[in-house]
């Protein structure tokens, strides 16, 4: 990466990232006023992502307050406030918060593996923030390209009858089944009738990932109650995922359940190998639908 070489001002760096034309429509017009920073939110992100500003010095609560004020102000205008703007802010703020949490960890003594993982996560979160921003800017470029392309129309005319008469026998080239699949796709209304849940910002929960967590905890402690195993679960989805993971592990013969009385404390004991890979089925992580139509041809 070329820009790392000299102490360019943050402005030049900013323009290199391609801020100006592409960033419109982002948290557009949202500025923050903090003790140590006063300017567009976007610039703040840039400074953080360029290591020009330490995330630990940013008061995320203040940023959030200001954003809420910004949204409120928009409510009064003709445009109204934008759901996608709010969503975007939430995503960015959540990442910032994660990043900050990771940064604030005492980096001196590392005695727990979980701490180590968190420290590694710090850079990953940072990278994730960068990546998130990158695709946002790319999206703006795509939108521009689509807008330009929509202004040109392709010549697509039927062949002159003289030439058409020469055409060889038409080749439909698909089976009736595939033909029906095409009809299915084309006749399905274009607007997906699903209500978008994007704005809920549901974190992804994977049974496979939770299984790994459960395996690690049980190997460390040998025996734990279910209550303890889910004590740090962020939400119900995680609890469900860990429960499913336990069922899978039980099926694999890696653990033993003990429950003294019905609805009582469930004790989980590790009976599997001390180390090594344990494969847990990912059937829960796969999307439920399966499409009958394979990919559409050229």
């Amino acid at each position: 990466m070329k820009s790392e070489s000299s102490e360019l001002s943050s402005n030049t760096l900013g323009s290199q990232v391609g801020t100006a034309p592409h960033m419109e429509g982002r948290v557009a017009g949202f500025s923050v006023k903090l003790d140590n920073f006063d300017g567009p939110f976007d610039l703040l992100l840039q400074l953080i992502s360029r290591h020009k500003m330490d995330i630990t010095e940013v008061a995320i609560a203040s940023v959030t307050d200001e954003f809420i004020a910004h949204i409120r102000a928009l409510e009064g205008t003709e445009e109204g406030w934008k759901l996608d703007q709010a969503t975007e802010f939430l995503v960015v703020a959540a990442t910032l918060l994660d990043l900050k949490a990771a940064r604030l960890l005492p980096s001196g003594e590392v005695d727990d593996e979980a701490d180590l993982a968190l420290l590694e996560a710090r850079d990953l979160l940072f990278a994730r923030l960068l990546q998130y921003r990158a695709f946002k800017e790319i999206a703006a470029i795509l939108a521009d390209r689509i807008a330009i392309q929509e202004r040109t129309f392709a010549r697509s005319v039927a062949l002159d009858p003289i030439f058409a008469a020469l055409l060889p026998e038409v080749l439909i080239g698909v089976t009736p089944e595939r033909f029906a699949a095409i009809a299915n796709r084309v006749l399905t209304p274009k607007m997906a009738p699903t209500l978008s849940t994007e704005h809920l910002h549901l974190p992804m929960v994977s049974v496979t990932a939770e299984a790994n967590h459960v395996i690690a905890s049980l190997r460390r402690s040998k025996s734990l109650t279910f209550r303890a195993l889910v004590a740090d679960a962020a939400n119900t989805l995680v609890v469900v995922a860990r429960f499913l993971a336990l069922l899978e592990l039980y099926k694999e013969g890696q653990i033993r359940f003990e429950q003294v009385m019905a609805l009582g404390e469930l004790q989980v004991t590790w009976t599997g190998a001390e180390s090594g890979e344990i494969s847990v089925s990912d059937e829960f992580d796969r999307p439920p639908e399966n499409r009958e139509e394979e990919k559409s041809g050229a």
Partner: protein
Amino acid sequence: MERDLERSVEAILMVVEEPVSEVVLAQIIERPTEEIQAALKILQEQYEAENRGFALKQVSGGWRFYSHPDLAPLVEKFVLDGQQAKLTQAALETLAVIAYRQPISRARVSAIRGVNVEAVMKTLVNRGLVEECGVEHETGAVLYRTTNYFLERIGLNSVSDLPALAPFLPDVDGLDEVIASLTE
């Protein structure tokens, strides 16, 4: 001398399916018919002078781009090439709509496909896969259906032998109309 007018004529004629008359061009471009005529003449002569592979021709009251007659053998070769036998994706999708919703008007097909299907429909008719079959009562729009040749090419005895659509689709019949009414 005025490139603007000629550019406009070129742009329109490049993408239209049917020959366009001078009067229609004059209306759209909002210039007198005489000027349009003059522009068409200039373009026609330019292409000829520049020895282009295409020409502007007036056919049955309208103007349209054609490949130059000199190059007909080459165009024939292109047409005869195996590649042209295969239906394009757009043609296949349009054919699917007609097969499962026949009889159906072009406007309706357009509404379902979400794009202009004029050229594609014409291709399907030219290729003998689709044919006209009367008009819609209320609108007077021409209706289309698939032909026996279509059945032959896809290897079925009758339209009723087409595989059934996904069970949830018949319910959206009404939806088609709503979408169509929005777009028509």
